């Protein structure tokens, strides 16, 4: 049993093909899950692999290396449509967690309350997975199949999150609701990417909700109904929320979650279309949208 910190992707792939290793990047989910129980496997640290960190623009859009920290994402100079993702980055745990935790780690941990999922879904993000046969890719919401479950194969690594170009006029927002300001797991959260035409009517809409279903969900019916509406006048109906299946737990009951998500959607759309740069949103400090 050993700790591996390869510097090339090929070396990493060779390792996972030959050794029973668990993958670790920031460690922010691995250690809490482990508690006091000793590790059963070797560890493969992906943070030193060449090309696995950083944000890079290409013809296909933005490529975010799998081991890119939330801090790097939060502080990057990105277009307006990334405002929701950057706001989410600033609400992941705390500065300490954001400095260590990585975007692919957040996705692979597959928590229903993963802060990264709703904004990535609204950005149309895809997960790049690399295995012995080379890379493959799939939408983030397809990659995560349920709580703690993903489509990552035994000999594969997530190598990047790929975000295709969006129309230049799109803006975005993220709303997180919790019982305290920092270090909080969402009761519900909402991300939107919204574009408006010259008359101010919505002509592009993506809406996703987290913590209200096993995997964060995009609300396609709502998105369709938003087209042509003025942002200040949008309403959300129970039908729009039908894809969601919130649970009742210590943080809130399911009925509250649905209602809160509906309200957060309206607020997120207002926030996105007001054009202001988004600061961190925290559970208890939401202001009138």
């Amino acid at each position, binding site marked *: 049993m050993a*700790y591996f910190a390869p510097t090339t992707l090929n070396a990493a792939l060779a*390792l996972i093909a030959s050794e029973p290793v668990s993958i670790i990047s920031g460690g922010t989910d691995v250690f809490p899950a482990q508690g006091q129980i000793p590790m059963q496997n070797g560890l493969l640290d992906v943070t030193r692999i060449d090309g696995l960190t950083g944000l890079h623009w290409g013809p296909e859009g933005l490529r975010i290396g799998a081991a890119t920290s939330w801090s790097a994402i939060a502080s990057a100079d990105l277009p307006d449509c990334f405002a929701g993702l950057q706001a989410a980055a600033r609400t992941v745990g705390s500065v300490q967690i954001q400095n260590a935790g990585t975007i692919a780690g957040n996705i692979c941990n597959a928590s229903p309350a993963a802060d990264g999922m709703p904004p990535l879904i609204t950005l149309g993000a895809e997960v790049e997975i690399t295995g012995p046969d080379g890379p493959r890719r799939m939408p983030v919401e397809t990659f995560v199949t349920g709580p703690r479950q993903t489509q990552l194969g035994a000999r594969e690594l997530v190598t990047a999150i790929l975000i295709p170009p969006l129309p230049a006029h799109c803006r975005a927002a993220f709303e997180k609701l919790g019982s305290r300001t920092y270090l909080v797991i969402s009761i519900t959260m909402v991300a939107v990417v919204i574009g408006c035409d010259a008359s101010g009517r919505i002509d592009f809409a993506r809406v996703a909700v987290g913590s209200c279903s096993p995997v964060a969900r995009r609300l396609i019916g709502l998105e369709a109904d938003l087209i042509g509406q003025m942002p200040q006048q949008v309403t959300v109906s129970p039908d729009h929320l039908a894809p969601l299946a919130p649970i009742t737990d210590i943080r809130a009951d399911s009925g509250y979650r649905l209602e809160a998500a509906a309200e957060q959607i309206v607020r997120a759309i207002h926030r996105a279309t007001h054009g202001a740069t988004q600061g961190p949103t925290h559970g*208890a400090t939401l202001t009138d949208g």
Partner: protein
Amino acid sequence: MGQPLPMDKQVLNPMTEFLLNSQSVSVTPRVGERLSQTLRETLGQRDVKVGCDAGDCGACTVLIDGAPVCACLTPTHQADGRNVETLAGLAGHDPDAQRLAESFQNHGAAQCGICTPGMMVAAVALLRQTPTPTDGQVKDALGGVLCRCTGYRKIIDAVLASHAQIAAESAVGDGAVGASIRRLDGAAKVNGTEMYGDDVATGDALVLRVIRSPFAHAGFTFGDLQQWQAQTDGIEAVLTCADIPGKNLFGVIPDFADQPVFAEGTARFRGEAVAAVVGRADVMQVFEVSTFPVDWTELPSVETVPHATAPLAPQLHPGRDNNLMCSGFVQQGDAAQALTEADVCVEGRFQTGFVEHAYIEPEAGFAQIIDGRVEVHACTQAPVMDLDALEIILGMDRKDIRILPTEVGGGFGSKLDLSVQPYLALAALRTGKPVRITYSRAESMQSTTKRHPSNIHLKIGANRDGRIQGFDFSGDFNTGAYASWGPTVSNRVPVHASGPYRIPNYRAVARAIHTHNPPSGAFRGFGVPQAAIAQESLFDELADKLGIDRLQFRLLNALEDNIPTVCGQMFEQGVGIKACLNALQPDWEVERAAAAAFNATNKTHKRGVGIAGGWYGCGNTSLPNPSTIKSGVRPDGTVVLHQGAMDIGQGANTVITQIFATALGIPVLQIQRIGADTDVTPDAGKTSASRQTYVSGNAARLSGLALRAAILKRVNASDGAKLTFGTGAIRVIDGASEHRIDLSSLSPDSEDYVFRAQESYDPPTKPLDANGQGSPYAQFGYCAQLVVVEVDSLLGTVTPIRFVAAHDVGKAINPMLVEGQVEGGIAQGLGMALMEEYIPGRTENLHDYLIPTIGDVPPIETLIIEVPDAHGPYGAKGLGEHVLIPTAPAILNAIKDAVGVRLTQVPATPARVRAAIKDLTDGN
């Protein structure tokens, strides 16, 4: 973090090398070893504190390549080639850290100090980038570090002011009573050298782990323990109830002692200890509890009061029928009759859950055998009570046991009870070797005491003139599996449930009911905060029904000198509740008007203003609780104070020294403190019941006066003489005459003192009769708080905007420390009101159990009220528990004021608040 260094670790290099505080270090960690573990245990960097091992508390924050991260979440291997900085290193050479250290001390930003390394390291990272940050930047930077003592406000102030710090000594002066001096024990808290329960073990210590019940109620049998031990490498001892030389029994109240060190055949709560394993540190680091040979049989359990009192419910203890442990009762006049005749009545049922103390330091300690005696070093609020208990458990003469408390990283009541002490002592005695243990966060939360959940019914009646006529209170308190301080809660609640008000016809019953839960014990207020929620909420309802201003209603009914309490106790002086309420009047008017203006222009967000009063009796309820303070002068002229009142962050080391120094008549910095140690320092009683400033403070005053008198007598000087201590001599200036006492001419006693004084103080109280009538306390402290909240009526979130807190402390010995207590208490009350609920098996960590973060505590203005008390030292009254009693009801009253809904259950989570709003508005 910066870009990783290009180094090929695929070829296994067993060495991990990095820069630690500017020194190259090289280690060989286990796979998956946490950097926090390596730093503390391999590299001796014990300034890195571990509070949760899950990234939830931030105490272990270090800088890696300049960026703050949690060392508990960082694999040590990942540090290879990097630059790691911890508080001790930063305090030694980093100018930002050094300025911050001064600022933390000058602002009282460190109380217990366990979070201070994490706070300061995170703040240094901020200050390097942003030397003069904004309030918001400070909060964002420190949002990942939890503090349970300070309420964060002084930490924010300290970081904001750190770029302009003045020199240290000027901040102390002579430190007489009334001076806001910095803590006398503060330097170690800001440079990382303070030693807590997990910091004192020797390098060769064995490690102990406790085996605990996974069920709320279970039978269990062990496999062949001898064989298991023989077959398991590195295990030096296995301990069970069969290995206890004395009695397998403890409890803080002797008549109710019922808790075993190790359960015998049946475990009565999830997390109860059944055995302990002691082994070599390297073996125990990878020890898997699941390999221990024990078979469990889950049994039916009762976890709520209704279940525990139902017919045929499982009974926890013989002789406590219907799971009723005990009850308390106070009656005056005829409440039932008065309620029938009152013009207006209000009635309500209120519910609160378990609240976890959530100090950032989990229970930890170390024991060793020295010259045949057992020494226990652990975090505790009550060293002599620990000694009393170990004497019984170990079956040893108490002179063969020594308790040497470590610094305490927060207590709030729970560290009054035994935790690690008996296991450590038993293991050290069994193996003859040094032994250590640190509870994991989950263990700490599962196995130590909680605030009692309560179900309260209350009815209050008043006449049209606003005067309360009758008050009928009945509360059931879920006391968990064992007694702990449950009897104290059931006694205190009926005495205090009236609040600081005149109530001629009063009846209050409190019952403590056993359930299969962790023992409910002492938590800041002993049940009074729960009772205050009911009483202060219904006071608002009653005032509204009568059409009387809520503050005026309280003033109308407030106690005064020579007015009897519900126990028939009459104070001729010192009743300060009216002064507290009056002090809030200007803010009450301004904030009510401001909230109305805000609400006129905001549809979704509504502001409300709430107030609540409170009182708390200082010291034990009608029972003796003396403190003894010894002091002396060494032949070289050193003045020594044996200060045994445990400082758990509240500031006893400073306050007791200030009182002693004032009595003796010398500056505080000339006094050398010796702390609690059952070999050399007399018993100053437990740190509980808000008694240390009052009771130990009086003992310190008497000790200072007696020492002074002994010195003056030597030269027949008058009472007004001035003392100056020099090397080997005391100069006594008495008016025109001057004397010099040559200390070398005096023969020192067996403890090397040439002058000494030892004085005790015990509050004068009288027993309560069958109706709870008597004099339970020699003094009460009084308080009233105001809060402005903003409620998001569509999401149900509640944001406190501002607190104003008026506290009658009689005389503020150290106003800065008074503010620190108030701010910290309010933060805990805020947590209880809005977010905290411990659910066994479900919230056994600090990400499911939420306590307030730095972003959740708004500005707090403390109004120090000084209505002197004739019994208190220099007029001082206790404060520690008063500070959170009015907070939760004030918040609930403010929510009602904002959106018209009366929350009767805490925590008032967003979902509960929203549900109440929907009920009020027919679903909208």
